[in-house]
């Protein structure tokens, strides 16, 4: 008897499938735009006007960093909760409700961004995914974002109520690990999105509607980053969950330690949010001391990531030895490298290690000044969200799509080639971006070449660094196409009896070894809230004190409407004069 996810939870499988396809669609569009950007900036191919670049970049950032990642992860968490509790969601209408809400939000945001290049749509939202005021989008952009986020809140509520229903049937049992991971992640997601939701609903939306006539840019920016760092852990936690519960199993072994995994997720709940100011080291108007606190919290966040590296690699080694691997490093040979699910996730983890190093540089207050707002940062987060998360999700899809459709993967070897090409492409693109940043190439600039000025790489030439970016971006796009091809062909295929059972890794040291206090979600949420209050009350108070809640008469600035090239030149002249 086949016992895939779709056999156990046919109705839930449909929602998950819908969420995955929504995410793949965003990935397809966003990824293609990435290629356009890379070729435009490196002057290999320029098929758009410079101002349109910002419309494209907004779409790329929003579709990939928000839509692709979050649609996929709500699918993953829904799988994790139902599988580990061995119980369906409480009410499927509710589930479809939050999914629909996320879709409507995405469509509103998408259409308002599209308005930047399509004259027929009387909107624009060329504000990049950070929507810093005074850049001002059409109100639909804000409304869409809020709907999307509220959709994710309801998704979290869905997982919580399913867990509560399970708990009343199983009062004395420990929370199963995948559910524990989904719930702790949801908790800090609530904590952090509250800030950005308030910022949009109380400050930005009224301003874009003309109800209030000004905002305080530093305040809305700070509230954005209050959410903006935690969101990176919202992307990352599902990837971590897959590394913890899938990689050990794929390697043929068990998870090394369930208690350690719980500690890691608790630490992320505590520390994800009171760190956001590390994105604002260069913002005037925030005192150094607050920045220092954010830096300290950030450095503590290295701990759970190092714990994860240890636990996951130890589990893989255990698996490899079970499969007959021997030797000091020889066990590596015994891992299932032909399996795209395993190899994709392992390479994603490897790249994440590299990202950890560049991340430490970003996190250091003093050395951040060297790389701030350069292409170094873009190189960094294409390793984190663009690979550690994206490649893990793509690799996971090779396992999940058969699970939720009951259809066999169309071509496994192609899957292996796909994850390897992503790795190689990202090697070129991200490496070259990091190096560009070191000699000052700015990010978010359509045409980074200036009169009477030439960038001077410490080694090699600007030309060859650009060539690496273009080559890498092309390989990434090829990889993306191979991935989508495999997904489409798999979905077109017929039902198969060869789908593996829906299981996840067992543990060497199980929940019985974990102190019960780890499962006390109320306690951890309370401490997390206190930490946030410590980290944010004083900075927010001094920002409001200095600039006022609504700022000193800041008018909205709409790039696509006002900023023809002549206008930009004019304002640059004014500034210089």
């Amino acid at each position, binding site marked *: 008897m086949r016992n895939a996810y779709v056999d156990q939870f046919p109705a839930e499988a449909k929602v998950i499938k819908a969420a995955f396809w929504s995410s793949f669609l965003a990935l397809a569009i966003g990824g293609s735009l990435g290629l356009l950007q890379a070729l435009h900036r490196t002057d290999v191919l320029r098929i758009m006007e410079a101002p349109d670049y910002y419309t494209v970049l907004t779409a790329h950032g929003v579709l990939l960093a928000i839509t692709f990642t979050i649609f996929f992860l709500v699918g993953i968490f829904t799988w994790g909760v139902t599988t580990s509790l061995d119980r369906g969601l409480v009410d499927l209408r509710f589930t479809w409700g939050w999914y629909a809400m996320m879709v409507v939000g995405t469509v509103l945001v998408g259409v308002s961004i599209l308005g930047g290049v399509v004259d027929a749509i009387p909107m624009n939202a060329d504000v990049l995914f950070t929507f810093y005021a005074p850049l001002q989008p059409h109100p639909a952009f804000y409304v869409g974002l809020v709907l999307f986020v509220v959709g994710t809140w309801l998704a979290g509520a869905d997982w919580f109520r399913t867990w509560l229903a399970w708990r009343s049937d199983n009062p004395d049992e420990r929370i199963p690990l995948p559910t524990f991971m989904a719930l702790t992640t949801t908790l800090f997601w609530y904590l952090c999105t509250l800030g950005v939701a308030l910022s949009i609903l109380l400050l930005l939306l009224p301003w874009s509607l003309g109800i209030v006539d000004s905002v305080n840019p530093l305040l809305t920016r700070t509230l954005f980053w209050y959410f903006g760092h935690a969101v990176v852990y919202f992307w990352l936690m599902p990837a971590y969950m897959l590394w913890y519960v899938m990689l050990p199993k794929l390697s*043929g072994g068990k998870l090394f330690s369930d208690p350690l995994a719980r500690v890691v997720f608790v630490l992320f709940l505590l520390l994800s949010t009171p760190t956001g100011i590390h994105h604002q080291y260069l913002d005037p108007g925030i005192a150094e001391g607050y920045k220092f606190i954010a830096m300290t919290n950030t450095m503590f966040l290295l701990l759970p990531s190092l714990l994860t590296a240890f636990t996951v690699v130890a589990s893989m080694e255990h698996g490899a030895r079970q499969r007959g691997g021997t030797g000091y490093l020889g066990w590596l040979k015994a891992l299932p*490298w032909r399996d795209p699910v395993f190899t994709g996730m392992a390479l994603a983890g490897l790249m994440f290690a590299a990202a950890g190093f560049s991340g430490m540089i970003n996190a250091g207050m003093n050395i951040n000044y060297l790389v701030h707002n350069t292409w170094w940062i873009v190189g960094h987060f294409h390793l984190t969200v663009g690979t550690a998360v994206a490649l893990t999700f793509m690799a996971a899809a090779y396992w999940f799509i058969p699970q939720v459709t009951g259809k066999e993967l169309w071509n496994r070897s192609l899957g292996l080639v796909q994850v390897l090409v992503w790795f190689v492409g990202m090697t070129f693109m991200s490496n070259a971006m990091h190096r560009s940043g070191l000699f000052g190439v700015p990010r978010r600039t359509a045409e980074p070449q200036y009169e009477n000025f030439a960038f001077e790489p410490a080694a090699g030439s600007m030309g060859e660094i650009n060539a690496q970016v273009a080559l890498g971006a092309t390989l990434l796009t090829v990889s993306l196409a191979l991935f989508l091809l495999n997904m489409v062909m798999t979905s077109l295929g017929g039902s198969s009896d060869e789908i593996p059972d829906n299981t996840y890794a067992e543990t060497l040291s199980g929940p019985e070894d974990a102190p019960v206090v780890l499962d006390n979600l109320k306690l951890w949420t309370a401490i997390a809230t206190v930490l946030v209050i410590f980290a944010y009350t004083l900075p927010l108070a001094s920002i409001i004190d200095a600039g006022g809640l609504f700022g000193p008469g800041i008018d909205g600035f709409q790039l696509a409407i006002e900023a023809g090239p002549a206008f930009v030149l004019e304002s640059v002249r004014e500034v210089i004069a």
Partner: protein
Amino acid sequence: MRISKGALLVVIAVLIPFIVEFRTALSWFGIEISVLESLVLGAVVVLAIVIWAVWPPNGDAEAEPTGSS
């Protein structure tokens, strides 16, 4: 085969960043090699690894458990 074909592909992929940045690293010691030289070097290393991998001392790497359920 000493290692499986999958593992061989992975080794080659992971080698690429090292070859790319080897050139950067050398330049710190004043040794400048061209892109072409770097490519040739990469090709030689890859070839060496492929030869090592397919050399037949124990022909059973492909027969290993595939346990990728």
